[in-house]
């Protein structure tokens, strides 16, 4: 015979459909989102990893001033590598973008066609899919560059440009202004010669055994190539951001997503804990009778656990189906917004199944089991006497006699439901964290972009470099001549230009922080651009750096060489107000001395006007408004879509929690409400007694948690930025954003309150006369 208690489940579901439906929606959405994310993330990573072989991605590339002849190629290839021409032409387009155009590829760094077709005619171009998305370009559209019209034949992903780093030295990529494309070999030849870059990709015949071996091999190779032909750029694959950044970055959001899911599960588990406890109190005498009749504790615990666990399991099943179908696409699109990845194939992810199905069910089972275990431990007699209070000699809290009736009544409800209100507070806090994240981040990005524009050190910073060819250990005399020649080419007549020394060191030994390259500026005396007189022993950090690493004057900070073991420790003597970068400012002479750079060395210019008289080969990077705002622009592109999802999600959490908890409060008092109706209270008066408190508490919590949320979010974002990315962005949340958050929360509550007041109206007076045994 089947246990007749099982028949209760369907009826329980029907009679409390609202509660289970809302919890189901919340759980299903969370699980589907996380499941979709994990599946997309895993599939993407696998596709990305496989792309190295599938698309025969280079082991590195170098650029030379002139094309290599056959002899030179043979000499270089003797080092155990095969060279492939990977020439490109950076071409400006009329929509203020630059596209790096390559000729069609057949051997190395192969191209994944994602839409349309490869170019066949000289006026056809296949552009990067992400660049096209970010600029609203579709297959069939036309693009204009220097008077020539190009027809977009298709959208592609170049396997050596999964991230759009224009230069390998760039702090951040910019997939809005910079893209890649391929054209036919014939069309490539027709492009202006001036922009032609002689880039060669290489593949090792015998791939190095490990990272150390690869490093040694590439160092050796660099010297050799340089001796064959002077280089302008040398980038082994492991140092190529355009290829490697994607792999490093993907997966770092995973922990956050899982954390989000588990917080929601725990909140829902505690909601269930309250409802179960309520049901047990309501059914105490029934439970007592069943126990008296011989039902075991574990049979009853299983019975009351079944619904929450079943709802979670069902939500997990539906969530996973949605995750694998609908959400996976949304999450994959989030990656496609940031990275130019080839078309992915969905892979079954057992980890996602465990984390989105087994773990939530286990959390739910554990929380409900332990709460039931606690209450079921009470003797049967206590159930029969309807006495489940955990405290002996329970007494009513004394309230002052002079207190007005309604206030006393509200306080009694508050005390009766303190557990509910606590969960409500936690839920509102959590939803507000999400909401603030969703609403404040876009605002912060915009504010940050504006503040950068207003607070630049100067309009242009030129970072200079000696071309790789200038240094040649084997031909010392030639090398010295080269250096002198380039030193000449680095001088400018621009009156705005001011020399500075630039040097980069990596942060060293900073706990819980991603290692990051910090730019050191050596500033001349009486600088026009840095308004701080720096003495020989001064060490100023930018306000962005002070904020990121929580540095104060007098603190010490350590750095190490990027390619060496030498470490440096400095004592901070001041903070320079500059939000544009995590940077250090020192006296130029002192800096040159400390880093052994030579007394008159300089490596960059500050200028408020463009410098046009320096050899382009000597310019490594130009830091201007566009490059400084790349970070915020890219973050907006990457996270913009996600922010709106997060907003919607927080509103759902608001509604679900407020709905369930206020429903419990009203249900708990159904008989009393019915009784006071009999006594003559109007619906409005009942609402005053039973709903106003929840309204006051909810409205209060929604506003009061915002300051706490602000600090928690600052802490979370600080940890995220410190551990996940280079650079810094101050989080500034305006009053308008906060007011918007509170308003959104109140509107959500308004919707719930309306439905609950209807429920109060429907409570019949007979309720008080029924079942009073």
């Amino acid at each position, binding site marked *: 015979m089947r246990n007749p208690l099982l028949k209760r489940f369907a009826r329980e579901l029907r009679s409390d459909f609202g509660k289970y439906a809302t919890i189901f929606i919340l759980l299903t959405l969370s699980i589907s989102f996380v499941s979709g994310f994990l599946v997309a993330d895993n599939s993407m990573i696998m596709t990305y990893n496989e792309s190295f072989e599938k698309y025969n991605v280079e082991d590195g590339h170098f650029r030379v001033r002139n094309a290599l002849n056959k002899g030179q190629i043979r000499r270089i290839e003797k080092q155990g590598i095969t060279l492939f021409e990977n020439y490109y032409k950076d071409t400006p387009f009329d929509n203020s973008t630059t596209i790096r155009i390559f000729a069609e590829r057949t051997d190395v760094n192969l191209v994944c066609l994602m839409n349309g077709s490869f170019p066949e005619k000289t006026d056809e171009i296949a552009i990067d899919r992400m660049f096209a998305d970010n600029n609203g370009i579709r297959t069939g559209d036309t693009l204009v560059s220097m008077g020539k019209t190009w027809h977009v034949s298709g959208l592609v992903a170049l396997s050596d440009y999964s991230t759009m780093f224009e230069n390998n030295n760039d702090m951040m990529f910019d997939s809005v202004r910079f893209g890649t494309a391929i054209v036919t070999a014939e069309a490539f030849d027709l492009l202006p010669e001036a922009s032609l870059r002689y880039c060669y990709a290489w593949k090792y015949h015998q791939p190095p055994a490990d990272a150390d071996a690869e490093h040694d091999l590439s160092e050796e190779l660099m010297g050799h190539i340089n001796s064959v032909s002077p280089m302008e750029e040398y980038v082994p694959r492991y140092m190529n951001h355009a290829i490697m950044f994607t792999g490093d970055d993907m997966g770092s959001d995973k922990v956050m997503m899982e954390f989000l899911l588990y917080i929601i599960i725990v909140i829902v588990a505690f909601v269930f804990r309250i409802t179960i406890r309520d049901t047990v109190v309501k059914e105490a005498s029934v439970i007592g009778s069943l126990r008296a009749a011989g*039902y075991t504790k574990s049979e009853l615990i299983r019975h009351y656990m079944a619904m929450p666990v079943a709802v979670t399991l069902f939500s997990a099943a539906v969530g996973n189906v949605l995750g694998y179908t609908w959400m996976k696409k949304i999450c994959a699109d989030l990656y496609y917004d940031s990275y130019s990845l080839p078309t992915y194939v969905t892979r079954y992810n057992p980890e996602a199944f465990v984390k989105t199905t087994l773990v939530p069910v286990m959390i739910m089972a554990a929380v409900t089991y332990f709460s039931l275990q606690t209450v079921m431990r009470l003797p049967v007699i206590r159930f*029969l006497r309807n006495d489940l209070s955990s405290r002996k000699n329970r007494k009513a809290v004394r309230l002052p006699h002079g207190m007005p009736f309604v206030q006393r009544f509200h306080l009694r409800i508050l005390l009766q439901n303190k557990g509910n209100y606590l969960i409500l507070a936690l839920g509102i806090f959590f939803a507000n964290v999400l909401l603030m994240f969703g609403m404040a981040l876009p605002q912060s990005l915009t504010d940050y972009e504006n503040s950068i524009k207003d607070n630049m050190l100067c309009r242009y910073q030129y970072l200079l470099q000696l071309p790789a060819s200038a240094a040649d250990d084997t031909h010392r005399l030639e090398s010295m001549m080269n250096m002198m020649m380039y030193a000449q080419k680095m001088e400018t007549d621009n009156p705005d230009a001011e020399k500075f020394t630039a040097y980069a060191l990596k942060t060293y030994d900073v706990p819980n922080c991603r290692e990051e390259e910090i730019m050191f500026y050596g500033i001349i005396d009486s600088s026009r651009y840095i308004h701080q007189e720096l003495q020989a022993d001064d060490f100023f950090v930018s306000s962005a750096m002070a904020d990121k690493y929580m540095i104060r004057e007098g603190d010490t900070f350590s750095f190490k060489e990027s390619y060496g073991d030498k470490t440096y420790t400095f004592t901070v003597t001041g903070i320079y107000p500059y939000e544009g970068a995590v940077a250090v400012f020192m006296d130029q002479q002192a800096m040159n001395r400390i880093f052994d750079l030579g007394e008159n060395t300089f490596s960059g210019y500050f200028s408020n006007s463009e410098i046009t008289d320096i050899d382009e080969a000597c310019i490594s990077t130009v830091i201007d408004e566009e490059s400084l705002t790349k970070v915020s622009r890219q973050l907006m592109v990457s996270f913009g879509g996600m922010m709106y999802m997060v907003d919607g999600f927080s509103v759902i959490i608001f509604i679900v929690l407020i709905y369930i908890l206020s429903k419990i409060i009203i249900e708990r008092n159904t008989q009393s409400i019915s009784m006071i109706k009999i006594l003559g209270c109007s619906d409005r008066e009942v609402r005053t007694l039973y709903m106003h408190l929840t309204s006051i508490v909810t409205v209060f919590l929604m506003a009061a948690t915002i300051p706490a949320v602000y600090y928690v979010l600052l802490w979370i974002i600080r940890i995220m930025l410190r551990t996940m990315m280079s650079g810094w962005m101050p989080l500034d949340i305006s009053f308008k954003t906060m007011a918007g958050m509170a308003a959104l929360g109140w509107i959500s509550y308004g919707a719930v309150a309306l439905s609950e007041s209807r429920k109060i109206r429907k409570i019949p007076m007979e309720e008080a006369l029924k079942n009073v045994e």
Partner: protein
Amino acid sequence: MFLELRDIKKAYGEKENRTDVLKGISLQAEKGEFLVLLGSSGSGKSTLLNIIGGIDRPDSGEVMIQNEKLSQMNEKQLTRYRRKHLGYIFQLYNLIPNLTVRENIEVGAWLSSDPLDTDTLLDVLGLTEHQDKIPSQLSGGQQQRTAIGRAIIKNPDILLCDEPTGALDYRTSKEILKLIETVNQKYGSTVIMVTHNDAIRLMADKIIRLRDGMIRDITMNDQKVPAEKLEW
């Protein structure tokens, strides 16, 4: 002896709040006997019944059923004991609100390896036409009959009734008493009924009067009166 209680003592509270509810109760019952525990409110009747039922433990003394000592049983064994031997009827019916009459009765049947036939029992209880109703659709008497059905469907050795007619009117009370009498006679269950209604003693084999936690007297009733003929 089927059931034996030896010097049962029970107190609640501590120090100045201590109340001695049972002060040394000893009694015996044979299989199939009908016992009535009489006494005023606070005399310890319900506490004694709960101790026999294994849902409360005495401070001292021993309850033995078929030579098995309840004091030596742990929580699991006590549950098994109740499951196997006992049927419980309360003054409050304690029915499961979202199960029908039939299903509420089946809740008892599920516990037994050899339950009575549900249809026959519904017929005996006069609930056949109400079997698909839920408790809130029933009168008090019908609810109590359902509770009785739930208690006796597992064919218990002992039926413990705690004021089963306490919340019912005269006519319904007699119906319930007749039913309990039938269970006692037809199925041979030992019935121990707590009541403060003096008239009910006439249907019992043994009348035990309690006062202030002690047995005032035990009377054997040789001239049992059928429930039908009881008047109060």
